[in-house]
């Protein structure tokens, strides 16, 4: 593992754990991160984590600004996104049959919480001030959603560090993937911090 990946791995671990703590607080149920895998893979292969580019997915997208520009994208299969909406509204799983405006709003709020906790954890560890934008909730093909973040990365490199967390909500049949891919600008900023420490 390169030093760069090592530093990034530590931060993703920390950020993910904090983000899940924030989400746990929001929905009032314990969330367990059962697996956190970090890999350096071709950008083009990221969609395989979602079963292919043509699979329908729900994305919660935020941009990052401040010490470095970047993107945060949370992506879920539609059934998982709907399960989160049920959890957020305190309803039994399976209550929501389709993603409504209220559901989108709830998922956006979830993106707010996860983004803020994740970036705060990185900021606390590195001193980098990173600010999330308001979230946008999107439903489309996984490949089309991933284009939003892939283009920036592919501009200068073909591979990306992908953090993939599998988590479950205690007592509930919900699991999902929390996908984190740093942009080159964010990695540069983190490398500069690492050189100083």
């Amino acid at each position, binding site marked *: 593992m390169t030093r760069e990946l090592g530093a990034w791995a530590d931060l993703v671990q920390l950020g993910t754990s904090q983000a899940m703590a924030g989400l746990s607080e929001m929905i009032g149920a314990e969330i367990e991160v059962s697996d956190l895998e970090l890999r350096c893979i071709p950008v083009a*292969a990221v969609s395989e984590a979602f079963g292919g580019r043509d699979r329908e997915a729900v994305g919660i997208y935020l941009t990052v600004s401040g010490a470095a520009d970047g993107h945060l994208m949370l992506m879920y299969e539609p059934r998982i996104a709907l399960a989160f909406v049920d959890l957020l509204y305190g309803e039994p799983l399976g209550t929501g049959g389709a993603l409504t405006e209220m559901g989108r709003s709830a998922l956006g709020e979830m993106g707010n919480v996860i983004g803020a906790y994740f970036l705060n954890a990185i900021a606390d560890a590195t001193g980098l001030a990173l600010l999330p*934008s*308001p979230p946008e909730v*999107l439903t489309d*093909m996984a490949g089309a959603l991933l*284009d939003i973040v892939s283009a920036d990365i*592919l*501009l200068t490199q*073909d591979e990306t560090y992908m953090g993939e967390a599998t988590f479950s909500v205690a007592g509930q049949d919900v699991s999902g993937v929390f996908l984190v891919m740093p942009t080159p600008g964010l990695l540069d900023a983190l490398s500069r911090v690492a050189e100083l420490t």
Partner: protein
Amino acid sequence: MSGPAAVVRTTALSLGEWHISADPEESLACIGLGSCVAFVAWDPVTGLAGMAHMVLPDSTQGRESATAPAKFVDTAIPLVVDRMTARGARRERLRIHLVGGAGMLQGVQRTNSMNIGERNTIAARAAVRALGLRVYAEATGGGHGRTVRLSVADGSMTISSPGSSAVAA
């Protein structure tokens, strides 16, 4: 009289990939295009088909890549056209389509993303024009993903989007 050969296999192009084929049993596809643009070309005389899955508009703004040689619109389109003509296609016969280039973000981040889909589409039109060619038809823009498939056998094309059935183009 027999019709076009049935498609036996599909070659799906990933980000930055291109492919040409004269195999009538093959189809070429770009799956889940968002802001990316597919360059699609077919020569009805030789039956030669070409496709590129392009990600970014301008090679001078980034770094070329051996593993994703078609990632930039301005270099991918001349590359595919050159390779097709080298195999016997004639430029003036090429039936060219552009697909994709969506603006996936509709909210506040739309400006932040610099509307890359629109820039890709504009760059693709310019690259086609620069070769002295014209775009036969395009399905670009909007705010949704698309999948495009091209049958090498007869140049027929289908475009599908989430929640819609495939439309022949």
